[in-house]
């Protein structure tokens, strides 16, 4: 089983994107950082007790699924949209959503375009092997306008082509657009068009057939979300986990009460370690892509359900 | 054709024993549909020196190549030193290590020194310690009169010297029978003599030899028996004097007239 493999290996193989600032990119020291990376680290912390025990495998839109299916990676955390066919036909298991997104368009301001409908005849940079590629085809077909797709492997390449003017428009998940624009020299020269043409619930996924492993990843993600909901942060987690407090939900989450960890073969404090890795969901968001980062994404749909968002962790019981 | 100086050697003191070295009975061979050797019958006694002559394409090479199984015969029987040549690899190996062969084009191994050429088979086939093999090799190199070349490579030797090395290489396996396939026909006239002299000295020691050659001087001087082949058959065999002076078969007469008429 995957869990045994990971334990035996002593490290988690985690598929991430080849480089998307804020989501997954190596920093100056070669250490991977970002929103998606944090999920991997949390899982590694939960399973192995060490958030750094992760081997990151950079994947492109095209290679990610084969990498996962062939077992080269144990979990794929690469802003991947949860779709029916990926779940059912490609035989993967999406274990949740860590970012609710939609597909957007970015154009240079100088082009004077204000709506995606005005893009008739435009050249569009698009990452191959993504849902955005399919959505794009649908969008232009439905609106009966023409376009010229320029297929591209990685975000870095797309950025380069777009900046060089080899395409008029770059389209991908809105979060990806924001992240890309943030790394431009002059982000202000580019606008993200108002249309969001699709639903893109992005989440980590694992292979079909190993439900125990799926459970571990799923509940690790849930733990991060729940932690934010219950106000467990990396600042107060030490205190909270030292002794059982009066919130049983928190106690069960942090393993000071009940046997949740043992149920799927982890230590009792698995969730504590996972949260300690990078903080709770909210902390991770703020640190990596939040409004105070150059990427500057607001929580929007990704706020807790209690705050009008869609994040809703099932109970730890 | 130049007559060689070898005519002066007297080999009459040498005895031929009754022991059979090679016994070929009703041997036939085909290349595809082409019948190369037809009903060959031949008995060679130990110590005999046989010369095979015949026009080109008559199957001389093929016959002696059958004797150490470089070619496979398809019918009949070849018994060498009491061992029948069949498809049994062990027998083949045994026979090959008892039968030495010298080729027209020497076929020395160019990447090995003369000494290594001579010790290769003794060491790897006979499993003789290297020292001993080298001593034997030097002995035979002295015999063919080129011990001083032992550490050179074949490419550095003249054709005649190369052929003598080839003979020494065969001798190092201490074979009981030696086969020669036109050993001098790739050589310049001066070198032919060197090689023939070596062969004569071998003959003097009583080695059983079968030699395909057109050197009729050599045949007359050394052979016990001359065999004439044509179209895959043995047409005539006789002792040399009779053979040359008094050929019986028409084909032999014709052949001899051509050979000697040059």
């Amino acid at each position, binding site marked *: 089983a995957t869990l045994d493999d990971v334990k035996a290996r002593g490290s988690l193989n985690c598929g991430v994107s080849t480089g998307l600032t804020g989501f997954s990119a190596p920093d100056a020291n070669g250490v991977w950082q970002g929103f998606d990376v944090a999920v991997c680290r949390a899982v590694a912390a939960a399973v192995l007790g060490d958030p750094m025990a992760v081997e990151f495998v950079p994947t492109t839109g095209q290679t990610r699924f084969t990498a996962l299916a062939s077992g080269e990676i144990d979990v794929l955390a690469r802003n991947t949209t949860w779709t029916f066919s990926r779940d059912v036909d490609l035989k993967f298991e999406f274990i949740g959503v860590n970012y609710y997104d939609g597909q957007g368009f970015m154009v240079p301001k100088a082009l004077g375009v204000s709506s995606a409908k005005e893009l008739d005849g*435009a050249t569009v940079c698009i990452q191959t092997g993504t849902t955005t590629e399919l959505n794009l085809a649908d969008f232009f077909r439905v609106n009966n306008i023409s376009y010229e797709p320029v*297929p591209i492997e990685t975000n870095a390449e797309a950025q380069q082509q777009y900046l060089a003017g080899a395409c008029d428009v770059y389209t991908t998940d809105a979060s990806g657009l924001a992240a890309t624009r943030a790394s431009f020299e002059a982000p202000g020269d580019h606008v993200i068009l108002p249309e969001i043409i699709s639903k893109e619930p992005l989440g980590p996924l694992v292979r079909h057939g190993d439900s125990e492993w799926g459970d571990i990843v799923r509940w690790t993600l849930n733990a991060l979300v729940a932690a934010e909901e219950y106000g467990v942060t990396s600042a107060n987690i030490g205190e909270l986990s030292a002794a059982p407090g009066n919130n049983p939900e928190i106690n069960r989450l942090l393993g000071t009460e009940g046997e949740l960890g043992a149920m799927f073969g982890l230590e009792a404090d698995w969730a504590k370690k996972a949260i300690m890795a990078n903080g709770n969901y909210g902390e991770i968001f703020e640190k990596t892509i939040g409004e105070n980062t150059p990427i500057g994404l607001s929580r929007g749909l990704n706020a807790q359900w209690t705050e009008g968002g869609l994040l809703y962790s099932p109970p730890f019981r | 054709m130049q007559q060689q100086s070898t005519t002066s050697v007297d080999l009459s003191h040498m005895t031929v024993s009754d022991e059979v070295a090679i*016994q070929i009975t009703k041997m036939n061979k085909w290349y595809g549909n082409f019948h190369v050797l037809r009903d060959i019958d031949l008995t060679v006694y130990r110590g005999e020196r046989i010369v095979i002559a015949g026009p080109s394409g008559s199957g001389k090479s093929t016959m002696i190549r059958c004797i150490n199984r470089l070619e496979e015969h398809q019918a009949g029987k070849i018994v060498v030193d009491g061992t029948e040549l069949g498809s049994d*690899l062990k027998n083949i190996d045994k026979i090959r290590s008892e039968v030495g062969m010298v080729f027209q084009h020497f076929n020395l191994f160019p990447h090995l020194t003369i000494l290594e050429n001579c010790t290769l088979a003794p060491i790897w086939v006979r499993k003789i310690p290297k020292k001993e093999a080298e001593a034997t090799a030097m002995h035979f190199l002295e015999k063919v009169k080129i011990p001083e070349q032992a550490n050179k490579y074949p490419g550095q030797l003249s054709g005649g010297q190369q052929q003598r090395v080839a003979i020494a290489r065969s001798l190092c396996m201490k074979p009981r029978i030696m086969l020669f396939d036109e050993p001098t026909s790739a050589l310049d006239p001066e070198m032919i003599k060197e090689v023939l002299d070596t062969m004569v000295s071998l003959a003097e020691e009583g080695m059983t030899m079968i030699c395909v050659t057109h050197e009729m001087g050599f045949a007359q001087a050394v052979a016990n028996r001359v065999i004439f082949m044509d179209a895959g058959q043995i047409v005539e065999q006789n002792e040399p004097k009779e053979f040359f002076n008094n050929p019986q078969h028409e084909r032999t007469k014709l052949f001899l007239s051509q050979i000697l008429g040059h």
Partner: protein
Amino acid sequence: MTTMTDPPGQGFRLSQLIYDTRYRSLTIQVVAMILLMLLFSWLVSNTIHNLQNLGKDFDFGFLWQPSGYDINQRLIDYNSQSTHGRAALVGILNTLLVAALGCALATVLGVIAGVLRLSNNWLVARLMAFYVEGFRNVPLLLWIVLIFALMTEGTPAPSAFRGDTPSASMLFDAVAITNRGVYIPAIHFNAAFFESGLYNWLLIIAVFAASVFAVKRIGHWAAVKQEATGDRPTTWYLTLGVLIVPTAILMVLMGAYFDLPSLQGFNFGGGVHLRGSLIALWLALSLYTGAFIAEIVRGGILAISKGQSEAAFALGLRPGTTMNLVILPQALRVIIPPLISQFLNLTKNSSLAIAVGYMDARSTLGGITINQTGRELEGMLLLGLFYLVLSLLISGVMNVYNNSVKLKER
């Protein structure tokens, strides 16, 4: 006295399997067969097991499902509603297109460079040596990336052609070189004979082919005439006329006109769009392979001994005739086999299209389709088969050619 032993007993002994030449080869082959089978069944059972674990099956049905993605360069009708199979076909055609274009240009470049490298002009020979060594000793991928970068970074975007004082302008008002590719005039018909452009072009090609055939007849006629009278009639103007006039007349009849590219909206409209990816891949493949071909051509010409041309000169043949009748026919025998294997390499190397996003067979069948359907095993198998069949076809052609021109020896 004889020490002949009786022939060994006729009974079959086990050791004969190894030591008897009759059975030995059989034994070896059977053992090899068994080992091979074991290896295969091991691999297959692993695969089956792994597929089962993943809950997948082995099924080519995906080829008939709609693909959902668009392909920018398509030689046949295709849209996002077409099947994956058709997408694969589009990719295959794209591969064949760039391979064919590449082979053609590489041959031209190679022949020119090879001949010039032998030129007695020192400067030109050096220059060609520089070209050949430069391209042969640097990885193809680097050249592809480099030329693509040159295309995207070194040329203006279409927007540069816009405005009252554009910073870039078209060559002869007909060709626009942009970082999205090159736009060249297209030929269109306003009195076309058929609805579909394809048929019109087929007609033109047919007429042109007929002209070529006629030219061949003219050549034949000239040869017959020469055989009869010794004088070869001058035919070049006839040839030229026959080659051009019928096609030209047909074009005029069909109301052919140039459709010049012009800036429309975001991009140039009209004309033919040669995409940057195609151009970069094409140029890089051609330049790279051309360098190898140059060496082959040079070697081929050098392989024809100087004596051949001297003999021809001594007979009074002019250099041109010598080239045509003596040198080339011989050089070609030497050149063509390695040339074809270069074509083979070029075709295989076209799979580096991945570096520039050119939609070849690997990108469609072996890329997006695999990714959208999760059929990596089936997809890669088909892709491998495609290349394999292509290679075998090309080398088959080579063998036929080799056998047909083999020099007769004794």
